[in-house]
């Protein structure tokens, strides 16, 4: 049986279920308890689990991320919420220098089973500091796993997997899509980390995306269908480890690929996908892989600049026509 749930509610169910299962799981971050979360993901959790396990912090990202790392090294399973990933930048020392390194520098003695989560990506006209995409930043770091997903059913299953995972996981959501609805199965299930999902089957071109750009990819696929172009649409869901098997499989069928990625172009997720494709599917490519990224700039406030900056269906369709060599 499925029910319709918003992304925020699917995420909450994941946290709630895992907290019920495991006493060592706790949630910590700014406004997560008494305010029910800045985006209401943790609504009601304080009531059920109390202030011992649902913990409001001061605005001190570096400090509470580090407290999470220490707690994880000492047997707990923290979920650290960042109001957005833009603010997690203050905590990168703990995520990158510590969470990611502990296992290696202790020669396997100290693992760091922790989830760092929050929204990533632009959310309208919020200007330079509040609009960044962090998947490629975190995915660059060995020792971390990175999930980025907005489909409610997947997000729930993946967050449960992330909480159970024995490695540090960076989990990226979407400020704009917390209200985005999807069918979510009743009862217990998880979605494995490291597997992409084919969201729509097609034969002419493969569109690869993740997080809220999936909506852009699907919209473009709808438009393309009207023009007789059949697009296969793949949701990466996990960024690291990247499931290039699913991508190669699709590419072998379509021979053409466009990557839609809100990260900046330089060393973005799209660059990695593109490298993997030319490395493992070179002989199947009928055209170079093309990507549609956010612009190679900071994102200003004004509406026309946001439009120019963001990937959209029109830009995707143009890229598809380019790889298909049609006008």
């Amino acid at each position, binding site marked *: 049986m499925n029910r319709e749930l918003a992304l925020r509610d699917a995420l909450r169910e994941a946290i709630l279920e895992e907290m019920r299962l495991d006493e060592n799981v706790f949630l910590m971050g*700014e*406004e997560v308890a*008494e*305010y029910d979360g*800045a985006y209401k993901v943790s609504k009601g959790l304080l009531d059920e689990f109390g202030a011992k396990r649902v913990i*409001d912090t*001061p*605005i*001190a990202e*570096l*400090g509470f991320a580090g407290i999470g790392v220490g707690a994880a090294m000492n047997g707990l399973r923290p979920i650290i919420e960042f109001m957005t990933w*833009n*603010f997690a*930048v*203050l905590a990168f020392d703990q995520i990158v220098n510590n969470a990611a390194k502990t296992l290696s520098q202790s020669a396997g003695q100290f693992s760091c089973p922790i989830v760092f989560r929050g929204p990533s990506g632009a959310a*309208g*006209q*919020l*200007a*330079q*500091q*509040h609009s960044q995409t962090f998947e490629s930043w975190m995915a660059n770091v060995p020792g971390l796993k990175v999930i980025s997903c907005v489909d409610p059913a997947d997000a729930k299953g993946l967050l449960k997997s992330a909480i159970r995972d024995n490695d540090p996981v960076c989990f990226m959501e979407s400020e704009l899509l917390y209200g985005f609805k999807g069918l979510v199965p009743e009862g217990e299930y998880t979605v494995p980390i490291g597997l992409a999902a084919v969201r729509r089957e097609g034969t002419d071109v493969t569109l690869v995306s993740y997080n809220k750009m999936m909506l852009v990819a699907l919209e473009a696929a709808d438009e393309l269908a009207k023009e007789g172009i059949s697009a296969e649409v793949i949701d990466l869901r996990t960024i690291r480890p990247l499931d290039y098997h699913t991508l190669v499989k699709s590419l072998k069928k379509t021979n053409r690929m466009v990557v839609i990625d809100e990260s900046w*172009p*330089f060393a973005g997720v799209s660059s990695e996908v593109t490298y993997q494709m030319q490395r493992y599917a070179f002989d199947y490519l009928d055209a170079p892989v*093309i*990507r*549609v*990224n956010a*612009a*190679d*700039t*900071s994102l*200003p*406030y*004004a*509406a*026309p*600049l946001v*439009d*120019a*900056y963001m990937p959209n269906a029109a830009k995707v369709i143009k890229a598809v026509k380019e790889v298909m060599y049609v006008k």
Partner: protein
Amino acid sequence: MNTVVDKKKTGKGNPTSDGHPKERYLFWFELMLRIRRFEEKALMMYGQQKIRGFCHVYIGQEAVAAGIESVIRREDGIVTAYRQHGIALGRGISAKSAMAELYGKATGVVKGKGGSMHFLSAEHKYFGGNGIVGAQIPIGTGIAFAEKYKGTDNLCVTMFGDGAARQGALHESFNMAMSWKLPVLYIVENNGYAMGTSVNRTSNVVELYKMGLSYDMPSEAVDGMSPEAVHEAITRAAAHIRAGNGPYFLEIRTYRYKGHSVSDPAKYRTKEEVQSYQDRDPVKMIEVKMLDEKIATEKEIQAIKDKIKIEMEEAIDFAENSPLPHPDELYTDNYMQKDYPFIMD
């Protein structure tokens, strides 16, 4: 204009019962009213979706901006957080260019590139407008560092909220500023809340001025609903700093009447609490005081009100009728290098 500025700062002119000249009262009243009316308009236009994104208003905190600007010089720097319309207007940024910025228009303070959180103006020595909580604490310290380096006697007013006071950067900055005797005036605007979190839920140390004491920094608490009290504290602090003694820390106790941002219903506090501050509203109080103590006539006060009203109407007209930035502006102002080779794919 310049003579008014001088009198309000030097204290020459007709002193009132508590020693502040009439010009200073008129200056405070005009600035606070300008900020109040500007933000009331901004909220209205936000409701009409003319303004988008985050919008954090300063309503209730105007006396802080007023008491700072009646003391410090044009050459002094200021840096603050995202709740910054009032500080920017205090610096002399026009309501027109501020409103156009909120509208995301090319004629805005930063050409529509910053929006509500980021009015920056080199001309006004206004360093922003920062959206990352606490980021401006070391930045303001660095602005002060540069003043000392260049051998001026300017200072940098470095403002932040009670929530920001919990960032580690505060401690690092306080320590270096004290060690190096930097000309920085730290001001925490303690409005009681960081989003939904009251000050007493974030620390055992709820009297924030005490945070300076562990660095031996002169520190005091000030009534932020009173422009007089703010002015007097800033005067003491600025004298100390300009004499080369290093930083000073003021905890200015104030209150925001509205929610954290336009999207916050502010259910974490009582109506009575909000009312208790509104009862001491600085914009109203100063008007009453000027009339009661015959500092200014009804006519003089009305003239200021009329002037501000027209100013706001003009600001809206200007914002409405200004052009949006051209999409090519996306590629300007990312690098000083003019021909920077962007990845264009």
